[in-house]
């Protein structure tokens, strides 16, 4: 069971990381990055590290997204080709 969870979490994390890097729209990229933080939270919990999971849940899925989004609102929102 735990092997399946780890495998699935890694596959989805790699897909989401690829999408974050390749996405042209920077706002979608930030939202995908917050999803990446949520996925790594699950992984930390499976690795029996609840302390790290608690930190990553607040920072990866909350505050880092706000920091990115707010600085994005003050600059340009599209990546030029």
């Amino acid at each position, binding site marked *: 069971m735990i092997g399946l969870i780890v495998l699935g979490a890694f596959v989805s994390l790699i897909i989401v990381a690829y999408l974050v890097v390749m996405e042209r729209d920077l706002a979608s990229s930030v939202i995908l990055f917050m999803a990446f933080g949520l996925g790594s939270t699950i992984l930390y919990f499976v690795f029996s590290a609840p302390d790290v999971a608690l930190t990553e849940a*607040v*920072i990866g899925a909350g*505050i880092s997204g*706000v*920091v990115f989004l707010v600085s994005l*609102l003050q600059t340009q929102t599209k990546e030029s080709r």
Partner: protein
Amino acid sequence: MSIKKNIELQTIISGLLVSFMTITLLSVLLGLDYTDKNLGSSLIDINEDLTRSANVVTSVVTYFRGLDTLGEVTILFLSIFGIGLGIENSPHMKNILSYDNTLLKLGAKVLFPLIVLFGFYIIIHGHLSPGGGFQGGVIVASGFLLMLLAYGEAFHLNHKIITVFESLSGAGFVLIGILGVILGDIFLSNMLPLGVVGQLFSSGIMPIIYIFVGLKVAAEITVLVEYFLRTEDVG
């Protein structure tokens, strides 16, 4: 023609180099085995006698690596200081993400004390359950973030109180360490009575250090979020 040939040669060489380094690194990493008896298992062995805390991660952060935690809190302070220098900020700046919504304001008002209470619960019970100063401080800061998003300019942070909290908690950490030198034998030594495993008042100086760390992290992340949100000129 010669330039194009050059670039192709460079690409091939760097590609070969990268794949060689990848294969070498992966073979080294896959051959490693961390599951023998190591530093962590010996720390778990001596944890109950030395600290009487139920959470070994907390013991490592606040006692076995206490000096490193002091350095990390200093890095946190320095980077927030750099942001304060870098972003222009004045009381006349408007919150750029605010919009008027009565339902959101009401919900935020109900949720804010609960979030802050939960954060302080996580901070204070750091030596008994998962959690501690870093996690709880960030949770408290996320409560302030909710209020800043919901209320906009109507929610004012008192910067004097935040500064007092931050500097007092930083100074308190160092003071606990120096008291350890005077009353005990080394910097950050455990000079208070240890108590019983699993009780709130136990494990010596560790809850006190985590309360200081939690206050400092909460103040700093709150100021960080406010710097980032309040950057648009009102007029």
